[in-house]
């Protein structure tokens, strides 16, 4: 069944889009990552103009994150205080990111920056997650038992930062500046790459802030809801690149997928989840790296006219 997308100005098969939304929603519920790093490339692959893929992608992530965040909230897995500080940072960061995006576009290097940041960030984080989690699993198999995560090591300078706040859900007493900076960094990345930023946020919360994995999923989804809502609004007003028809179909598939994701995720061990997410992130990075390295069959491309001033 074909449906015409009024902003993307193209006709697509409803069931293909439903399946894409369902798959992304499942991952979002499973990992706590919004899945935007997969959704945007997938939509572009289906022929959606890149600008519309980015704008509509953020809109879909709003819905799947609301759905996932509510499910986590009921399980008591959201650290509200931590979430609010991350959101404040995220709003500042996405504003900075939009400015950076315009500056890079004027210089004519935005395509390269997007590709390179995908490869470097996804490759680095994916590699880190896989090696870390595999080491943890091997140690456990060797009979060492669950080792408490070595949070208290090597954070001398972090412990000396001012504005210390107690985060009861996360069992942390750290400076509020730390999550604020994480939020800003994720906001910048999210605006430039057109993603929710969960794949950066989740590892940052685990390894940098030292939050327990269970709270990380809920709190990251909570932050992503507000940052992507802001991004959707900016894309709709500044660029006219949010296609609500496309988003609604993606959301319908995604909302269902997210619920299954949360259920499956609850049955899997944290280390297994991290290996799976790490492998997925690595796979996308490798695919994008190949695209950069292999000579394209068609070196020419039509620049999208949608989203440009008319």
């Amino acid at each position: 069944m074909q449906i015409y997308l009024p902003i993307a100005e193209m006709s697509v098969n409803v069931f293909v889009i439903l399946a894409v939304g369902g798959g992304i929603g499942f991952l979002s519920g499973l990992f706590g990552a919004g899945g935007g790093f997969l959704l945007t490339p997938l939509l572009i692959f289906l022929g959606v103009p890149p600008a519309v893929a980015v704008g509509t992608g953020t809109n879909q992530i709003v819905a799947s994150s609301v759905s996932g965040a509510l499910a986590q909230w009921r399980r008591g897995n959201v650290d509200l205080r931590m979430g609010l500080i991350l959101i404040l940072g995220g709003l500042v960061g996405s504003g900075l990111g939009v400015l950076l995006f315009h500056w890079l576009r004027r210089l004519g290097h935005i395509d390269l920056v997007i590709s390179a940041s995908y490869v470097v960030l996804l490759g680095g984080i994916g590699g880190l997650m896989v090696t870390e989690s595999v080491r943890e699993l091997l140690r456990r198999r060797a009979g060492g038992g669950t080792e408490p995560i070595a949070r208290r090591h090597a954070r001398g300078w972090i412990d000396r930062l001012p504005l210390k706040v107690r985060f009861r859900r996360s069992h942390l007493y750290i400076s509020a500046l730390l999550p604020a900076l994480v939020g800003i960094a994720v906001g910048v990345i999210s605006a430039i790459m057109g993603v929710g930023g969960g794949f950066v946020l989740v590892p940052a919360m685990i390894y940098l802030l030292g939050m327990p994995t269970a709270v990380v999923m809920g709190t990251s989804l909570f932050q992503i809801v507000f940052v992507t809502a802001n991004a959707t609004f900016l894309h709709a007003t500044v660029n006219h690149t949010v296609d609500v028809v496309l988003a609604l179909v993606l959301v319908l598939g995604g909302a269902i997928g997210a619920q299954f994701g949360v259920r499956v995720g609850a049955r899997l061990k944290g280390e297994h989840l991290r290996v799976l997410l790490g492998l997925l992130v690595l796979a996308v990075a490798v695919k994008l790296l190949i695209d950069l390295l292999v000579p394209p069959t068609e070196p020419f491309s039509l620049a999208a006219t949608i989203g440009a001033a008319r």
Partner: protein
Amino acid sequence: MRCSRLALLVFAGLVALTPLPSSARATAEEPLVVDLSRHLVEITTGFSGTDLLLFGATDPGGGTESADVVVVVSGPAEAQTIRRKDSVAGLWINSGSARIEGAPAFFRVASTRPLEQVASSALLQRLGIGLDQRNLDIRVEDDGSDAVAYRAALMRLMRARGQYDDRIATIARPGRRLFRTEIHFPATVPVGIYKVEIHLINQGRLIGTQETPLAVDRVGLGAAIHDFAYRQSGLYGLAAVVLAACTGWLAAWLFRKG
């Protein structure tokens, strides 16, 4: 008898065309009468491409029974930017671009016979039949390529999108004076005001030309959403966020109950 039938056709054509702004100037002296089955291609929510029927008749006088009919459908001309990837330090990245003006967003040609048998290339070029002959304004900003390569790339890319078609569609001539052809518009057809030109060419000489208007536009829900998104983008953005949040909340609620 023949004359009166032609007059009837002329009248039918006039009636069909009068309400439209730039209707074909079909008068009794014209050697050519044409019309389209519809003058508006409506892009609805379920739009997946459509066919239009173009039909007409030629004047029996002046030995035009063997004359050729050539139909040119061209979409609105929009400026296009084409980028070229090149290897820079081992990475394939966009390193050059060209801005092309004067290229139609959509292009189709139909003819009763192969074009090279219909007219000289000079006449074809003068009439704008075929894209190879068309004058394009190509401004290249690329040290590694030239306008010829960018022009060829534009043709390839537009063909891949279904907006251009190399193949010349056939025009059927069921009678000595009647002709008809189907024009296909794919799902990717760009919106805008189109130009449909019908040339009557006899033994390499242009006898007459008719033009009939055609519009491609969004209608219904799709049109409403598009207008809303461009005219009240702030409200539209808010609506998009609220809609997404509500759907997500609804799904979470449904699954808690279920």
